[in-house]
């Protein structure tokens, strides 16, 4: 091809090979981007709703809420005698289905709590007063080893202006072991919501 | 392809390959130094002489053998000795004087031997009698706030170590300063 031919080709209609290449490129790029994201189907947005005693599984934990109660005395005081107050105690059966040891704190980080009738959110860090595995009559252990089923107690204080909660909504967010924006090294990172539990608060 | 052009490609490769390797390795060097505590500036002094770093004069005052202070103390590990180290730091200018009152950064004093082994200070309180020396580079005034050391005033620090008996006769001192990334090595 001489240079005059080339410039003519540029000015005229696009050659068939260029059209085909462009079409293949667009198609391949779309597929390459859409495939890992779960295909071209519309993503599912509906989060299942469950009740007390029903099991739910994410990538790291399976949980079964066993008991929710509002207590007037701290059931798991860190030091000394139990102080009076309003304590929301959530007992769960938990299995770590991930590949490595996790902690009760890791689990608590995945659970978002809303109480009714106020509709207020319980701060999962600030309002937490205790979190531990129930074993040998204590709640001090923190580790959740893979494939070992444990009973876990999470205790939250109910913030002062809120009325006594009668219902608790727990949304469990998934954790996935993958690389992230901050580092290409894999670790457990927050994923999608797995389940919403509608629970009655006992006394 | 003419030989001239081949030569150009060859020379280009000769420059590019080391450049690419350097670009990949050099950013790691600093990370490695920060992580490992190696690298950075170093000043060395021995036989009671002072090592000066950023206007602070460092001097090894003494390394003596200590003994357990209480009769019913937890015994020492077998074949070990207590080393009581006293180091002094004297600011020689205003900037060095203010360095003692800084709120961030650390100054850690280690015992080391000729074989390159390094020991951290012991937190046991029964290894030496109460001393008039400070325990760290920082100085607190009566209100327990950080205070500078006046220019020319000697600030002495004592630290105790439990070291293998075979290392005792060969002990020296390493002061690692962060974030300055500097090490002061003092030998008796």
């Amino acid at each position, binding site marked *: 091809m001489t240079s005059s031919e080339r410039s003519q080709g540029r000015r005229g209609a696009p050659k068939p090979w260029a059209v085909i290449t462009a079409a293949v490129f667009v198609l391949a790029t779309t597929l390459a981007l859409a495939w890992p994201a779960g295909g071209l189907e519309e993503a599912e947005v509906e989060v299942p709703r469950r009740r007390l005693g029903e099991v739910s599984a994410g990538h790291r934990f399976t949980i079964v809420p066993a008991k929710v109660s509002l207590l007037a005395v701290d059931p798991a005081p860190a030091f000394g005698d139990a102080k009076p107050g309003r304590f929301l105690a959530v007992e769960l059966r938990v299995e770590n289905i991930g*590949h*490595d*040891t996790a902690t009760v704190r890791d689990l608590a980080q995945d659970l978002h709590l809303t109480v009714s009738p106020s509709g207020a959110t319980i701060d999962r860090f600030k309002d937490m007063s205790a979190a531990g595995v129930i*074993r*040998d009559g204590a709640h001090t*252990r*923190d*580790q959740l*080893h*893979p*494939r*070992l*089923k*444990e009973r876990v107690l999470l205790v939250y204080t109910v913030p002062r202006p809120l009325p006594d909660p009668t219902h608790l909504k727990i949304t469990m967010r998934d954790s996935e072991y993958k*690389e992230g924006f901050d*580092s*290409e*090294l*894999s*670790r*457990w990172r927050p994923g999608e919501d797995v389940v919403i539990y509608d629970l009655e608060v006992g006394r | 392809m003419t030989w001239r052009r081949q030569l150009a490609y060859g020379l280009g490769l000769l420059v590019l390959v080391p450049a690419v390797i350097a670009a990949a390795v050099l950013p790691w060097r600093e990370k490695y130094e920060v*992580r490992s505590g190696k690298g950075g500036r170093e000043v060395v002094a021995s036989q009671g002489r002072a090592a000066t770093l950023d206007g602070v004069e460092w001097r090894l005052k003494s390394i003596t053998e200590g003994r357990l202070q209480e009769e019913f103390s*937890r015994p020492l*590990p*077998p074949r*070990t000795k207590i080393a009581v180290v006293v180091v002094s730091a004297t600011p020689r200018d205003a900037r060095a004087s203010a360095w003692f009152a800084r709120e961030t950064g650390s100054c850690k004093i280690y015992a080391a031997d000729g074989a*390159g*082994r*390094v*020991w*951290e200070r012991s937190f046991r309180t029964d290894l030496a009698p109460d001393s008039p020396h400070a325990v760290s580079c920082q100085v607190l005034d009566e209100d327990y706030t950080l205070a500078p050391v006046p220019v020319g005033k000697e600030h002495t620090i004592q630290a105790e170590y*439990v*070291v*293998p008996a*075979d*290392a005792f006769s060969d002990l020296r001192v390493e002061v690692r300063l962060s974030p300055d990334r500097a090490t002061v090595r003092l030998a008796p």
Partner: protein
Amino acid sequence: MRRTLVAAAVAAALFAANVAVQRATPSPDQRYAPIASRGGTGHQVDTTTFQLRVDRVQPARTIRMTDPYGLVREPRSTPGIWVVVSATVAATTETFQAQGARLRTRAGLEYEASSVLDTLDKVTLQPGIPVYGPLLFEIPARDLAGAVLSVTRHADGAGGLDVLGPAVEVDLGLSDAYASRLLKEMPSSLTVGQVREL
């Protein structure tokens, strides 16, 4: 025509080679993982930072810890079994803490050492002063066979990953037959001794 065929074959071969290289490329987790020295029980395994020898492996249903005053504490239970690995560790040049002690099962699950006080992984080791003591793990009984002990400096996963740091991996020699014999003869309670400087 022949040239087209050759070109197509070369293109296919290059594509296959490309895929092979992509597949064979280690992941970032593998590339930055600690560098492991391997060994068996009863043998000293050396790294630049520390040396470790596994002396004994004992499973138990419950354990009782001995505190620094020599008193035996209340039994501790587990939903699985306890695995008590008695080991000797020494730091070589700098102080060292075997925080990242974990048991890896055949299925690839990683069990961090249990958060129990007064165990070997909680002690700061000084160079030249070896320490003997227990490392405690809780695992399902069926995962005892084939377990491997891995020791690094840091406890966390990739977040605190000891980039290219030293690691020791010890095959605990738990064949199917040996593991099932250990489980059959497993004591209901095992008293675990203190950490001792040697």
